[in-house]
């Protein structure tokens, strides 16, 4: 009994289950309802902006949840429902930005950067590993004579 109470308490804090969907909004068909929940989670509530309409208590979010369900009952596919909303509110209503030429940099930019970094690293490491190409210059006759003189000097002093 106690374990059950604890479980219920913990479940109440699970964000996934704590949507803002009101009982009167829920569809009779569980399959459609779960599709509606999935779609709602990807749609931004434009009033509160960083919540999905599934989580938001704003009136607009509720209206959009009802609209999503209405379209699903009317036979729309998930993509058609999303299109319907995007037509009215623009790409911003999608919590995950669509992949298209204007957003390529957003989606692929960081990977491009990583790749460029890797290429530069490979070039750098290769250059490091290559043995020094320039040979040490030979001593000139004059230098050799001076060294010998110095060494001879040292021998005499010790």
């Amino acid at each position: 009994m106690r374990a059950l109470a604890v479980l219920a308490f913990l479940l109440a804090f699970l964000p996934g289950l704590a949507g803002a969907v009101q009982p009167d909004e829920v569809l009779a068909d569980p399959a459609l309802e779960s599709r509606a929940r999935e779609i709602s989670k990807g749609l931004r509530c434009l009033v509160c902006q960083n919540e999905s309409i599934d989580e938001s208590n704003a009136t607009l979010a509720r209206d959009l949840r009802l609209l999503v369900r209405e379209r699903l009952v009317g036979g729309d596919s998930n993509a058609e429902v999303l299109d319907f909303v995007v037509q009215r509110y623009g790409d911003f209503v999608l919590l995950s930005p669509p992949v298209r030429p204007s957003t390529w940099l957003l989606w692929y930019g960081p990977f491009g950067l990583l790749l460029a970094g890797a290429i530069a690293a490979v070039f750098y490491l290769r250059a490091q590993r290559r043995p020094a190409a320039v040979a040490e210059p030979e001593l000139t006759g004059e230098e050799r004579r001076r060294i010998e003189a110095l060494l001879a000097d040292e021998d005499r002093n010790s």
Partner: protein
Amino acid sequence: MTRRLVYLLPLVLFLGVVAYFAVGLTRDPQKLPSTMIDRPAPEFALPPLLDSVPGLATADLKGQVALVNVFASWCAPCRVEHPILTGLARDGVTIFGINQKDKPEPAKRFLANLGNPYTRVGVDADGRASIDWGVYGVPETYVIDREGHVRYRHVGALTARDVSEKIRPMLRELSR
């Protein structure tokens, strides 16, 4: 020499990404562009709120340059911008109203107390027409051209400055 350039490549790319994000992040996320700019206004037909003032439908938007203002009696910023709308109406600007998700009695009282700047007022009781317009914050004001195309959207209460710097020049331009 080529090796130098290869070393510089990540830096150049990084700066590119920084510039891209810098532009994106300085945009005000509260100011969303309307998806309907330069497109025909959505199909809708709303019943009248008052006996003396007709309702509003898509066909009514054609034939003159006009403002469409989404308002409600429960919306405080609507009261703030109301004197500006009445001022525009006094100067001969055609303003159509969409009364969004309101009850008839308070809505009528709102117009009776503050004055009615609207040539037509449509009642959008369930907010569906507003969704078709892409309304996400009340009040919103749209500039409509003679062909019934949406040319501009303003979200939030209109200020005197918005009107003098944006709305009036735009109306003048479109009325030419």
